[in-house]
C-alpha cells in the first residue's frame, strides 16, 4: 500500500487538546469534526488541508487525552498519514484501530519541511521525500498490528473473532 501527499509540518508534543479541543468533544459526526481539527494550533487548518495531505511532526505527537475524536478529525479533514519522530501511546493505538496510517521515522522528520512531497510504502518500510530527493526506512509493523491495518482497523479483527 502506498500513500502520496503534501506535507503539513508541526512541532513536538502536539497534544490532543489542540488537535480537538474539549469544547468539541461531544461531536461524533465526521463533517463537524473535520471543521474543528487542529483549530487551536492553526485556526485555518481545515482550509489549508487538501485531501491526501500528510502531517509530519517531531516527538510525542498526540500526547494527553485519549479522545478518539483527535485522530478521527484528522482522518475526516483528509489527512492520509502522520509521520513523526515518536507518538504518544493512546494516540498510536487509536490511529491503528481506526485505520489512520502512522509511521515513526526521526530521520525523515529531520529533513522534511512544509509543502514537501512524500511517498510512503506502508509495508515496504520506506518513505521517499521527492522534494528533497531522499529516502528513509522505518521499522516494519509487528505482525499483529499489520493484520489490524490490513483489515482497515480493529473492526475487522473484532468481527473475525465474533465469527469464530
Amino acid at each position, binding site marked *: 500500500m502506498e500513500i502520496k501527499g503534501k506535507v503539513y509540518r508541526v512541532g513536538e508534543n502536539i497534544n490532543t487538546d489542540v488537535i480537538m479541543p474539549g469544547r468539541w468533544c*461531544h461531536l461524533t459526526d465526521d463533517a463537524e469534526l473535520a471543521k474543528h481539527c487542529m483549530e487551536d494550533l492553526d485556526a485555518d487548518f481545515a482550509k489549508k488541508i487538501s485531501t491526501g495531505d500528510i502531517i509530519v511532526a517531531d516527538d510525542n505527537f498526540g500526547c494527553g487525552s*485519549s479522545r*478518539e475524536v483527535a485522530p478521527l478529525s484528522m482522518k475526516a479533514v483528509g489527512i492520509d498519514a502522520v509521520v513523526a519522530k*515518536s507518538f504518544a*501511546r493512546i494516540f498510536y493505538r487509536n490511529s491503528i484501530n481506526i485505520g489512520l496510517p502512522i509511521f515513526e521515522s526521526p530521520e525523515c522528520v529531520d529533513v522534511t519541511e512544509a509543502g514537501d512531497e512524500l511517498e510512503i510504502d506502508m509495508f515496504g518500510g520506506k518513505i521517499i521525500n521527492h522534494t528533497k530527493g531522499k529516502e528513509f526506512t522505518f521499522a516494519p509493523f509487528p505482525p499483529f498490528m499489520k493484520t489490524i491495518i490490513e483489515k482497515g482497523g480493529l*473492526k475487522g479483527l473484532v*468481527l473475525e473473532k465474533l465469527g469464530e
Partner: protein
Amino acid sequence: MGYTIAEKILAEHAGCEVTPGQIVNVPVDMAMANELSAALAIKELNNWGIDKLADPNKVCLIPDHFQPAKDINAAGIAKVVRDFARKHDVKYYLEVGRAGIEHAVIPLEGIVLPGQIMVGGDSHTCTAGAINSFATGVGSTDIAGAWATGEVWLKVPQSARLTYTGKLRPHVYGKDLILHTLKDLGTAGATYMAIEYQGDVFEQLPMSDRFTMANMAIEAGAKAGLFQFDDKTRELVESTPRYKSDKPDYTIASPDADAVYAMERTYDVSDLEPQVACPFSPDNVKNLSALHNVKIDQVVIGACTNGWIEDLQRAADIFNGRTAHPDVRVIILPGSQMIARQACDLGLPQIFIDAGCVFSTSTCGPCIGGHMGVLGEKEVCVSTTNRNFAGRMGHLSSEVYLTNPAVAAASAVLGRIGSPDEL
C-alpha cells in the same frame, strides 16, 4: 526472570509467559467509558452491526464530562449512553447524582479490584493503578472491541521503578512528588511504560496521594501507574460498597525481587518544596518559591487528580476562618458523590461556602474547558487538575498553573500564587 507488577497481571490474564514488547490478547475485568467516549464506542458498535455485549457485568458507564448536562447536545449524548445501558442491562451504569468523576468513583465503589485489568475510554483511567490494578486509557474503538469480545490487545510494557525517600516538609504532597517527577522525566519520559511507584514516603501519605500520582502517570506518557498492595490498599478495597456486599476474590500482584526495570529513579524528597506546573505543559515545573506576584482570576480545587477527601480537608484547613481574595473565583470539585458526602460529615462545605467558594457537584467540566468554570481571554487559573495545555480550560490565551490543594487554597486567599506559609 522475575516479573514486575504489570507483567505479573498481564501474564496471569494472558495465561502465558510474557515479555516486554510482546502483544497479548487479554480478557478485561472492566471496560469503562464516560459519556463522550461511550457515545463514540456505541456508534462504532452500531456501525459494526454488533448488538450483543460479551458481558454486561464487566461494563461501566459514568456520565461525568459535560454532566449534569450543560446543553442540549450534552443531554442528547447522555441519553444515548443511558438508553444503551438500559437496553444491554449494563451492571455499572452510574447516574448523575449517584456517581461523580469516573476515576474517583471506580476504586472507591470497588468496581475494579487489585490484580485486575481495566481499560477505560479516558486517559486518566490509570488512576486505579493506586490500588494495584492494571488500568489503562484507550480510545472508543478499543472500548467497543472490549465490550463486544471481552478482550483487548495490549503490548506488554517495559516497567519503570520510581522510588521516593525522605521525610516530607509541610504542605508537600503526592501532587508535588509527581510534578517533581514530570520535571525530571518530561511528558514523554515514560512513554509506553508501566510506572511502579514505591518508597518510604508513602508511609507518610494516605491513599489519596497514591491516586494523584497514578492519575498523572499518563502525563509522562505512561501506560499505567502502579502501586504495590499493602495494608492501606486492603483497608480501602475492603471498605468499598461492592466488596462489602459481594465479597469478591481478588489477587494481589507484587513485583518479584528479580524483576527487570527499563528505567529506575530515586528521588530524595526531604528538601522538596511545593511544586507548580506552569503554562503550557505539566512538565514545565518550578518551585513555588520561584513564582512571584502571579495574579490569578480563578482557582479550581478537586477533580480526579485531587478531589479525594484528604485533598478537600487540606484545602479546608487553609480556608478555615479565611475568605477567598475578592478578585478570585474558587470552585471546589469533590471527586465523587461519596466524597462529597464524606466532606459533609466533616463540615467542609460550610468552610468552603463561608470562604466564598462554589461547592460544586462532581464533574470534569472545568478541567476540559467544558462548563462550570471555563476560563475567558487571558484569565489565569490555579488548578489542582492534571493538564495545562494551551486552551485546556477555556480560551486559548488563558493560563493554568497546576498545584496541590493547599497551595491552591492559599493562592485563592492571597489573590496570587503563594504558599500556605504566607497566611
